[in-house]
């Protein structure tokens, strides 16, 4: 095989190799992830080209040095109380369930009364979206989210908080 044909074959294999690498990396991160139930508020279903998703905000009771996050010095959040609360710690410090806001694409906001919130989104199917939208209007909801060992928090599904309604 001459050099040009070899290069062409490699270039054509690259997209397939990239897709396989992405699947492997995501599956590996998912395998070691722990599951949390986090209260959420606010919703805003959208339907852009990229697909249907539900926009929501995680809402936590916040403790620890929240000023670290507000000053942009680099902070991490330690998930506590099953996901209902977070403790702000310096980014370099470890804790049992550490969320890195940058890895999780979370823009944190701190409100008076020691509350923290961060916007996130969940990709949902077209069939599932209307039911979910109704539930979000009717009940307090939680996001069931997974936390990978490298600190990425991602939502898996939204469901009513315990004792409220039925799952979609």
């Amino acid at each position, binding site marked *: 095989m001459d050099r*040009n044909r070899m290069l062409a074959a490699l270039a054509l294999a690259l997209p397939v190799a990239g897709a396989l690498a992405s699947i492997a990396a995501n599956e590996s991160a998912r395998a070691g992830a722990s599951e949390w139930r986090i209260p959420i508020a606010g919703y805003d279903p959208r339907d852009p080209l990229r697909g249907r998703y539900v926009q929501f905000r995680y809402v936590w009771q916040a403790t620890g040095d929240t000023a670290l996050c507000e000053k942009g010095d680099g902070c991490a959040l330690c998930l506590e109380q099953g996901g209902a609360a977070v403790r702000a710690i310096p980014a370099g410090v470890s804790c049992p369930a550490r969320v890195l806001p940058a890895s999780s694409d979370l823009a944190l906001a701190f409100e008076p009364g020691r509350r923290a919130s961060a916007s996130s989104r969940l990709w949902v*199917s077209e069939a599932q979206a209307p039911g979910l939208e109704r539930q979000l209007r009717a009940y307090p909801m939680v996001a069931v989210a997974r936390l990978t060992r490298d600190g990425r928090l991602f939502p898996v599904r939204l469901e009513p908080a315990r004792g409220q309604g039925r799952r979609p």
Partner: protein
Amino acid sequence: MRLGGKLEEWRAAGLTDAATLDAIRAYEARDQHGVGWFAVAGLGVLAVSLGVMSLVAANWDQLSDGIKLAAHLLLLTAAAAGVEWFRRTGRVWAGEGALFLLAALVLAGIALHAQVYQQSGPLWQALAWWAALSAPAILLLGRTRLTAIGLGAMLIALAASYGLDGGDWLGETLSASLPPALVFAALALPGREADDTFRAGLFGMGITLTLLVVSLAHIGWVFDVTARDAASVWERAAAPACFVAGACWLARRDQPPAEARLIMVVLAGGLAAVLIALGLPHPEGPGSRFLGVLSFLAFWGGTALLALRAGWLRLFRLGVAAIAARLLIVYFELFYSLAFTGIGLIVAGLLTLGLAWGWTRIVRRTGHG
């Protein structure tokens, strides 16, 4: 090209005979693709890509994540195999279709992985990942102008979305490198068949973007450029300068001398014009504007002259039009009261008439129209 009327006019004037006209018509009627054809084909491929994206976006519940990912991998492999198959059998447009499908599937795959693994992030990250996975195959296997324009458009979209997201040193350096990098890639790609228009498409996009950037950067002369602004421009200049140097070296080595000189003036002269407009600290005022006019006229004048010598008549006409437009703007900048505005218009008009006279003289001397 609308030939019908002109050919009849030439025959009536006795410039040519019926046999020659038939030969010209037969030559022009061979398989060529005009703007209309590109528009229809472009709409078709856009519809296909949006369709693939919408199918992914529908995120069907009936299929498990594993099946969706496997089906995507299968389609991706089939498209890659299709590109190779059509290339071997010499079916250029079928190969281009398969290559386009491959690129659309890469983008659809990024959206699919975002859905399955609940990833979120800015648009530029998805486009950068797309470019990393698709650009090598398109650069090596693309054969037509349409494919080259598609790749260029995606890279412009990447640069724009990165800029809108805030940008930083790396993003701005890469964006600034895009125009000379397209020219460099067009000149550096290995030799192809004679009917290959991919390189010409890439080259045309690179030159067009360069001319656009140089003309926009000229606005820098209207504003105050501080030492700090200037320093940040120089910090981002190294990578574009490397691409400019590489493209000039390739042009000198491989292109006819007249074209090589034109490429060098457009790229190196363009970089110099941008650097003095944005990288040279200057206050806002008439003096700066005057220097700006001079640099603009020098760049476009040199480009037009060398374009004429290289036989690139469209670029020559564009250069003359750019100079004429700039001369007319002079009166807005330098004259303020009604009387001076009148004088300004007269001066600008005379300069433009002088330009038209010079054009006629040059055209007569060189025989180009």
